[in-house]
């Protein structure tokens, strides 16, 4: 997956998990959950959608990789 595709999938998952959220307006190196105000249920939904769209199950152990927008893009595109 290219970084651009990863970014698009993340953007999509964020919009679904927390309607009204937009990754284009946040600092890509800020804490993602904080920047988008995601609680643990929102984040779980985010992971759920991302697992589906990326076609690979994201484990809880992978959560640290999803700390920021940039780290998430890196995590998905490095696969």
């Amino acid at each position, binding site marked *: *997956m290219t970084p651009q*595709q990863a970014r*698009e*999938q993340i*953007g*999509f998952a964020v*919009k*679904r998990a927390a*309607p*009204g959220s*937009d990754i284009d307006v946040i600092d890509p190196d800020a804490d993602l*959950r*904080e920047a988008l*105000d995601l*609680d*643990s*249920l929102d984040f*779980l939904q985010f*992971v*759920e*959608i991302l*697992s*589906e*769209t*990326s*076609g690979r*199950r*994201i*484990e*809880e*152990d992978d959560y640290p990789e999803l700390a920021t927008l940039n780290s998430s893009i890196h995590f998905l595109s490095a696969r």
Partner: protein
Amino acid sequence: MAEFLMPSLGADMDEGTLLEWLVKPGDEVHKGDIVAVVDTAKAAVEVECFESGVFGSVLVEPGTTVPVGTPLAMITPAGAAAAPVVPAVVPEAPAVAAEAALPPVAGPPAPAPAPPRVLAPPPVRHLARQLGVDISQLRGTGRGGTVTHADVEAAAAAQRRPRVSPFARRLAGELGVDLSIVRGTGPGGAIRADDVRRAVPEAKAPPPEAAPEAAGRPAAPIAAEHSAERQAAMRRAIGNLMARSKREIPHYYLSTTIDLEPMTQWLRARNRELPVAARIVPAAMLLKAAALAAREVPQLNGFWLDDHFVHAEHVHLGVAISLRDAGMVAPAIHDADTLTVADLMVRLRDLVTRARTGRLRGSEMTDPTITVTNLGDRGVESVFGVIYPPQVALAGFGKVTSAPCAVGGLLGVRSQVTVTLAADHRASDGYTGARYLEAIARLLQKPEEL
């Protein structure tokens, strides 16, 4: 003949706005059926009826704000004789939301006592019949008032334009739904809130490599003016209730830090086995422990009413839910102590989603017997809450952290959480409160038994 009243959906509610009727006169209704949507300062709430029978006449039209206890409609109990139909009364109060409603074009036109002769050539009459347009209701724009093809077609188009309940219209604005693509399932094809929710871009998943814009429509921003007004009302409602709590309830506070290592380990192993969608978050475990502990320490589960404590038979766990920038609500998960953690998780996700899209039930608003607030997601260590009257206790969980901790004489790094209790000193003493926190701590050591 029973009256269906504007319910009190919490100690902080004085009046409510009827947003939408979900049944119509003549419908059979059963106790527990959702019959209406009512807007309070805090949320749009689906209201159940408390009678079984036949839904009679509507006394209050959508968009009208009335005090708690005002009759909204009549219900003829099952078995009773048919009720006389009372004409609907529209209270004098200006119906704010009603203005938003479309002109009721889809309704059947009132039969005119003596239909005036309408001039229309036979082909136009034929077209009108085909399109289901009542030609006697049309004002012709042709020569000498003759009804034309265009008149009939315009009337047919107007008929196709659906009616939309004020609540559905508001929801559509908030959810970014285009009403022209929504199929109404209400009377006469009217669009109801549920239809709008169904039309929210489903967007299960974009084709893996697709651009997100293609699959998910961006959510529309909430109408700013409306949102500001609601926020102010929400702050007032929270403020009034919390001020009353602090004025009337002599709070006492306890706090303890609990070892969560067993729970964290157990949850991690279990979530590895489960599909992602069935994963359980720590909050669900904490809620279950709080509910079971409430059953163990019944002095904290119930209400302070008329100068004495009334113990609640069931544990209906209130869960404080942040509506992001729009305030908060604390609806109940019914019988939370009897649910498996997996079920509790499902209910929690459902409750949070509904709280944020205006779909809570009346009983969820009124039934909590003890409330839990969880600010762990926001990174705070501990939260000392304000009790929701007439409840007598509120438990609070902070962030689950890894911290150095002495275990078996050695220093280790363990998962921990700080749990607090705010309780009503009229109903219990610190000793009882301490037993509650002890019970939570003990229950969380055996996560597999929760």
